[in-house]
């Protein structure tokens, strides 16, 4: 999987490394900004009320 991505990135090794870092950061950003906020309420830490309003 990662080998496939690496082979398909353009440029020389340095450009590939740079692109991989950018890609990783983008994935982390999407996770923190969209995926985790969606997943987090499914965990029990949010239930602090007595009537589930």
């Amino acid at each position, binding site marked *: 999987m990662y080998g496939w991505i690496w082979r398909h990135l353009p440029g020389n090794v340095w450009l590939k490394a740079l692109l991989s870092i950018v890609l990783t950061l983008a994935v982390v950003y999407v996770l923190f900004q969209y995926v985790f906020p969606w997943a987090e309420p499914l965990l029990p830490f949010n239930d602090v009320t007595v009537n589930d*309003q």
Partner: protein
Amino acid sequence: MRVIVRTVSELCITVGTLIVLFVVYVLFWTGVKADTEMDRQVDLLQDQWARQPVRPTSAAGTTASPKPPAPYKDAKPFALMYIPRLGFTWNKPVLEGTRTSTLKKGLGHYANTAQLGQKGNFAVAGHRRTYGDPFKDFPKLRAGDAVVLTDGAHWYTYVIDKGPYRTLPADVQVIDPVPKKSGYTRAGRYLTLTTCDPEWGHSHRLIVWGHLESTKPVESGKPEALRR
């Protein structure tokens, strides 16, 4: 064969990294976000209070309650809470409503319960863990502890009467005007705080109850409980 093994191991590493990132998000990032958001809510409140016209002071030190305030706006902050037992600098904004999105920004006042300082039960919920851990030290609360609130015009000092009481999530009676298990028998001006128990779970709720001890205008300075 090698391709399969490689792909499976890559998947495992990816899932592991995801889990670690999620833990970082829940334990650390929600706290950072909540602290920023709570600071913003406190700023909002202070802006709002700074723009209020100065009202003529009523007789200082009276315990008569001020006029009922206007209904609180949903998901908007309307008061600041101080609990010296949870730390001398502990103060959090109180917002109207207890929706999940509201509780990410501060403590939540149960809609349909009494307003601050009014007759009935002023009930507030807060996170025990995650989102800034506002009620992390909830079990340390004891009878006699002060819970001070201000709405910009008055200081309301509530005193806790009954320490952490453990109950089930469906026990809505704990926020009744006169909660059954609290030991109160007559109508009065009460305070209820709720959070989850155990710390990271959701099987139970922890409750404390208190009564309004004194109300005084902000012009007369901080209440006793907040003076060092």
